[in-house]
């Protein structure tokens, strides 16, 4: 399924755990250090360096580009390290997050509450994924190097929906460790 950012309520309501998507359009980039700064700004009521409404944040710290390239290697980092900051960002209007690995229960619930989606990309294939990012620029926190706040242009970036706005979790249903794994699979099959 092809989707474009910004994500609207209509787009996210059509996304279900397990759906394969290709994302195009403007996507923000941030990891640990930038999240800490954004969370501090939100907590103190100050303005953010970027608009969050309908946006997606990709958890990434790319390698520097070689001359003539838009970006270096750029695969997802582990999302759970951002878990403590994510609910506040979703409350502020963020509609999607993109990384790898499971999220905390709090984030899963926040995705339901604020109608947002968590996507995962395949980790460890940053060379491949860099070919789906056509531009990259730092919009804030340049001093953080790779950990800055980025703005990317995605072109058919492949990902999978892990947590949807209905509270489903695709990792759990796949690994069979979730309480309702069998139920999730049956419901999906009947769709």
């Amino acid at each position, binding site marked *: 399924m092809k989707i474009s950012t910004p994500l609207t309520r209509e787009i996210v309501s059509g996304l279900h755990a397990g759906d394969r998507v290709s994302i195009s359009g403007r996507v923000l980039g941030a990891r640990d250090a930038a999240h800490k700064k954004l969370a501090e700004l939100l907590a103190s009521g100050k303005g953010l360096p970027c608009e969050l409404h309908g946006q997606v944040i990709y958890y990434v710290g790319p390698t520097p580009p*070689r001359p003539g390239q838009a970006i270096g*290697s750029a695969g997802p980092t582990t999302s759970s390290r951002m878990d403590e900051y994510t609910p506040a960002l979703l409350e502020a209007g963020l509609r999607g997050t993109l990384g*790898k690995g499971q999220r905390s229960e709090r984030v899963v619930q926040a995705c339901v509450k604020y109608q947002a989606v968590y996507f995962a990309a*395949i*980790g*460890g*294939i940053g060379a491949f994924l860099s070919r789906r990012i056509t531009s990259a620029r730092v919009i804030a926190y340049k001093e953080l*190097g790779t950990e800055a706040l980025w703005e990317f242009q995605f072109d058919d970036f492949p990902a999978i929906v892990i947590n949807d706005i209905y509270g489903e979790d695709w990792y759990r249903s796949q690994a069979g460790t979730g309480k309702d794994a069998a139920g999730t699979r049956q419901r999906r099959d009947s769709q």
Partner: protein
Amino acid sequence: MKVIKSSQIRDAVSRLWGEANFELPGDIIDALRKASRTETSPAAREVIARIVENASIAARDRIPICQDTGVPIVFVRIGRDIRIEGNMVQAIARGVRQATKQEFLRASMVNDPIERVNTGDNTPPVIHVDSEPGSKLRILVAAKGAGSENMSAVKMLKPTEGEKEIMAFVLETVKAAGAKSCPPLVVGVGIGGTFEKAAMMAKLACLRPLNRDKSTGTTRFEQKLFGEINNLGIGPAGFGGKTTALAVNVERYGCHIASLPVAVALNCHAVRRKETVLQ
């Protein structure tokens, strides 16, 4: 006495650390292809195909396999008939600095775990030195990603516990890592010794080549662990499937009557290691 200049060590480390980040080892690619043939899930096969495609893009365009170009870990084995001219530790750091700049690697190291200022050049490397007979100097450079490093674990079991409890700890560690460690993994297990000896054995085990000859082939316990890990169903990228591990390597050592240390070192599918011998 054979003399090796520190500048030779610097240049070797620089070359190996760059190459490790661009060239996925052949034994890993072979293991991925083999795993793909046993997978029945289309999602698992697709993930493996993407990993193999990524490796060829990385090697062709000299773009890192993974954006996390890793902690530089340098294992040096110094032949006892060698004299090193100059400062080896500084030379290794210079090699890392040189490749970071010349090969457009990511700066992923901070100066101090609490202050956390990025050093900008991937120093300090983690260095392990050992000696051996002869007049060779062996250097193994590993680029270790933090995603899998963060999920590695050490546990001090009771000496009355055994294979069953060791297996439970290994499975618990792999399960907790889930998709975070970028499966399919190479799992290194160190059993025995002491707290640090077990960790060191586990780390070396997860860097051991997979294509060992038959005489030193996998042990029964390794095969058992391999089977159990792949029954977890986590699969490539955590998207489900039979391939959660490409291999399980175990190292053992004698230990105290009161101890049973067990370490589990996880390596993501992007196993980045390169070796050379200076002589």
